[in-house]
């Protein structure tokens, strides 16, 4: 089963094409991660799946219908997107933010039904921001703030959630925290997650399906265990590296070759760490 598919999708700004004639299938109920270098078009592709960018050619199909011909409110009930580093208006409280996720279900006289309230409360519970509901979003820490935004997406109650680099500007602890949360949402609630990640190692740990984008199209896609190879990293990122098994998760781990400082006896240093 596919959640979203694209037919000969061409994307770009002005004259220049960023993605050309792409046929892509996003599997349902899985975590799909887009990887690629800066400017490879992975964010552009993600945005077009959420109708934030109109395709130049081709189409994006959601539930068998072209999204360009589906009422935008209908789409908002099936799919939500969290853009990269969103900024909340000054002084908005967490509850007021999460409540915005209910927009596609509301009308001007019916703005806080029991269903809305339940969805918002649940979203704040799952993301662990319930105790912060009356706090101002701009006063929260980076990790809490990102959880509040994800709560807004959850309140939207969509089967598909797209996230553009949800871990940017977070320290490693909070990166793992956010990705664990998304992984739980996928496993426990069977939500389809599609996200752009910069860190290839984290991508390999969390993704069921990796889509590597390079040269305006898909270089390769599939299970990270089989597709992530030194060759892929060289072609997609232009980086020479060694791929090892992550000692914690067993997923591929990229060890980039670089200059820079290195221990005289690297093997000794590793033993000490172990």
């Amino acid at each position, binding site marked *: 089963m596919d959640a979203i598919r694209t037919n000969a999708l061409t994307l770009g700004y002005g004259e220049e094409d960023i993605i050309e004639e792409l046929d892509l299938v996003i599997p349902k109920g899985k975590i799909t991660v887009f990887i690629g270098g800066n400017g490879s078009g992975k964010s552009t592709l993600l945005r077009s799946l959420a109708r934030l960018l109109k395709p130049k050619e081709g189409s994006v199909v959601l539930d068998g219908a072209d999204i360009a011909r589906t009422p935008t409110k209908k789409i908002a009930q099936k799919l939500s997107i969290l853009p990269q580093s969103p900024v909340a208006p000054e002084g908005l409280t967490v509850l007021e933010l999460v409540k*915005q996720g209910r927009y596609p279900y509301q009308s*001007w006289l019916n*703005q806080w039904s029991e269903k809305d309230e339940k969805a918002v409360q649940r979203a704040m519970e799952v993301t662990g921001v319930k105790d912060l509901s009356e706090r101002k979003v701009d006063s929260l820490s980076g990790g809490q703030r990102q959880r509040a935004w994800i709560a807004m997406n959850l309140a939207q109650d969509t089967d598909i959630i797209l996230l553009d680099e949800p871990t940017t500007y977070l320290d490693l602890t909070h990166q793992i925290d956010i990705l664990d949360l998304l992984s739980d949402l996928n496993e426990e609630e069977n939500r389809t997650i599609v996200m752009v990640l910069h860190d290839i190692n984290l991508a390999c740990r969390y993704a069921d399906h990796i889509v590597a984008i390079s040269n305006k199209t898909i270089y390769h896609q599939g299970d990270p265990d089989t597709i992530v190879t030194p060759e892929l990293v060289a072609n997609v990122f232009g980086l020479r590296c060694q791929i090892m098994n992550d000692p914690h998760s067993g997923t591929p781990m990229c060890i980039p070759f670089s200059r820079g400082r290195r221990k005289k006896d690297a093997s000794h240093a590793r033993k000490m760490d172990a």
Partner: protein
Amino acid sequence: MKRYVPFRIGNISFLMNYRSIAYVVGLVLLTIILIILSLGIGQLNVAPIEVIRALFDSSTDMNNLVVQSFRMPRVLMALFAGAGLAVSGAILQGMIRNPLASPDIIGITGGAAFATVGFLAFFSDRSNTLTVSIQWLPLASFIGAIVTGFLVYFLAWKNGGIKPMRLVLIGIGVSAAVQAFTTMIMILGPIFTASRANIWITGSVNGANWSEVWTIIPWFFLLMAILFVYVRRLNVQELGEDLAANAGSLIQRDRFMLITLSTSLAGIAVAFAGGIGFVGLMAPHIARRLVGSSFGSLIPVSALVGGCIVIAADLIARTAFAPLEVPVGVLTSAIGAPYFIYLLYKSRNQ
């Protein structure tokens, strides 16, 4: 006490914010106090209790006349003009997602000034007498505001939509252009027109009468009622274009409607009270400090703060320098300009 309490009757439901309701009640009381003070103070001082009696026609004839016929229309005009400008600014700041946006900056006030000066010059004969009734002046100003608002809107149109930042930049450009024309007409015209136009440009509620008040009130409440329906849309607009699209709102259609509302609210205010400066910038700001950015709370609080500012400023403007009377716009700009600089100073690290 809980801050958020749901309100539900059948299919009608809202989330009420008790803290905001408390602010609204407090500000309404403050407004009433300011109105009574303003009605009482002047060349003839009337005690607050006599002011209230005068409103019910039961004070001395002199008090009744001064309070009801001379001061009341002026105070109400100050209230509604301030409220209109404040709400107009609140809408723009939310939609453009920039706290420095206001009706003066995107050219609405400038357009109205141009129309006013043009009206005074065009309809004056050689002896500087108006050839048409002065009653048409507000209409001219209103048309000037609306036309400029839409001119800016259409010039900002690009690739099937408008981007808020482009709107601001074009607004500043158009504003500067109409200002040049305004100055030119004032310099070329008779000195009498220039001084009269200058008072209008600064903003003044001096000489407001009941018929003007009865014209602005229905328009104000009609626009506020439409805005009430749009509050939800304004709330998602404020999250930015991507998130508004994500929520399933029709962004460009909503923007058009919100700009129309904002321009009209500023338009009715400047039509009768002139270009009272900085209220559209300051009032929404103060309101945001009090109740945050959710428009259900922000709109009524902005309106009341704006009204209070103009009533208070006008009270000072007509009493502090007595027997001289200063246009209220001088006072609001005198407070507003430093406030504006303070805002820029405070946001310098962002």
